[in-house]
């Protein structure tokens, strides 16, 4: 529960006087009486989730084009979102789409193939087998979903960390804080050619977009709490998930109490290789320590946080 109550006395602004005065229907003119002060108080309550057990969500971005079910495309964006409810902390861990892993019942292959083979369920099995982390929920969206959801909330304000120009994803950004529409947000999230670290950096940028969304949601809620429903509506219309609407609402309320500064945005480290003509990513075998740490309480201790793949570029 987030709660604060503040009392203060402040000077009366002409605007406040005008609105308060006029709307109660009094006919007294300002010069006839003196308006001394404004008493300010605040009360609030948000029904956030609590509990000692962390929540884990697998967030998937599909490459499916219109006409193909979004949950049967290649999952080119794969992120574990771990939420520690007791400490209001969140960890995001991205996987490069070309990560070469064991896919249950399918042998070894690129991690993004799992969804095309067996939907989000097989991707969940794959990531669970890889990391040992058990997922409570999954969320899948696609190109159209991202574009539409961002447009439905009126754009996403994001701090672009470095110049990005890429004809494939159509990204064209100077660094700095800017508000992107759905098309440009998608371009930001898809661009890997502008990034020195390729798919590793792209995965980190996708985490940056999630963080930007969290920061914006909190900011908008502070100004107009009703915006929470706009965001939930935009999300639900543009994703597939096994979460009920009630659960989404609870998580949305819970997200409000998470300071973006308390969110870790990480990517599993690894290297690139070629197998049978396929360009793949080999994940660092030491990442098991990272998975175990994350799976324990959704918080990764400092010594296990991998270096940012875009540290040299940002």
């Amino acid at each position: 529960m987030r709660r604060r109550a503040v009392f203060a006395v402040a000077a009366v602004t002409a605007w406040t006087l005008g609105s308060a005065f006029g709307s109660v229907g009094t006919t007294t003119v300002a010069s006839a009486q003196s308006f001394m002060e404004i008493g300010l108080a605040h009360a609030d309550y948000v029904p956030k989730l609590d509990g000692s057990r962390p929540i884990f969500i697998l967030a998937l971005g599909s490459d499916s084009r219109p006409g193909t079910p979004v949950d049967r495309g290649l999952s080119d964006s794969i992120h574990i979102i771990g939420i520690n409810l007791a400490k209001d902390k969140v960890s995001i861990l991205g996987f490069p789409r070309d990560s070469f892993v064991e896919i249950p019942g399918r042998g070894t292959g690129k991690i993004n193939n799992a969804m095309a083979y067996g939907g989000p369920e097989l991707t969940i099995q794959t990531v669970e087998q890889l990391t040992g982390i058990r997922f409570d929920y999954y969320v899948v969206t696609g190109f159209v979903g991202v574009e539409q959801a961002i447009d439905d909330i009126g754009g996403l304000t994001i701090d672009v960390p470095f110049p990005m120009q890429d004809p494939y994803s159509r990204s064209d950004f100077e660094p700095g804080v800017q508000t992107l529409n759905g098309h440009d947000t998608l371009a930001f999230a898809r661009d890997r050619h502008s990034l020195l670290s390729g798919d590793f950096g792209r995965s980190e940028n996708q985490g940056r977009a999630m963080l930007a969304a969290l920061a914006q949601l909190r900011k908008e809620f502070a100004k107009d709490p009703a915006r929470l429903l706009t965001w939930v509506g935009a999300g639900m219309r543009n994703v597939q998930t096994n979460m009920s609407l009630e659960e989404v609402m609870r998580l949305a309320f819970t997200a409000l109490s998470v300071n973006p500064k308390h969110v870790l945005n990480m990517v599993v480290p690894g290297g690139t290789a070629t197998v049978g003509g396929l360009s793949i990513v080999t994940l660092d075998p030491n990442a098991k320590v990272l998975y175990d740490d994350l799976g324990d309480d959704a918080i990764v201790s400092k010594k296990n946080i991998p270096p940012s793949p875009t540290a040299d570029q940002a």
Partner: protein
Amino acid sequence: MIIALGVVAGLAVVGAVLVLVGNNPVADIVHPSARPVPEFAFKITRSEPIPTDPKTKTQQLKGSAESAGDDAAGILDAFYTQAFLDPANWEDGNYDDAWDSFDEAAAAAAQEQLAGLTAGTTAGDTFEDIQPGRSVLRSETLFDADGKPMTISATVTFKATATKKAGGSTIIVSEANFFLQQVGGEWKIISFQVDRADVERAPKPPASPSGSAS
């Protein structure tokens, strides 16, 4: 008939005795709850639907959203009446009846934040009357995939004029948002964000002597 006359006569005698023996007998025998409760209703300015099913058009849910907005308004009319306008509550500084429209967790939180949510625990010492002003409400309703209203957001501006015993008045201004969900088949407030910005108005100065007629 005779019994009725007897009862009336008896009551008259008891009343007369009380009036004669007390220092301020009228104030003593008139309980605050006997004062009328001002009528109050928010003016609904907008009721918008928010679908979660991508195939559902907003227009299809317009009627249901208006109905949900009416439901929310009814609940908040009652809450603001209990929290600010019912003399039986503010004169005693006791707002126990106001939390019926909150779910359990929100009610518990609300009762710890009376300063923001009510006329206050000392309102009876300060005010002699509280009358509502023009107050407005807009609602947005989130619908589930079956077109059933799931969560209502009600954003309100409540205004009232509280006349002070010492002269002058306070214009009570409550800018607030409430989220409501169905709990046990009834809409209940599950979340609230309330900002108060009350304006103090000093007593009117005595009229200056008028000049002689010209």
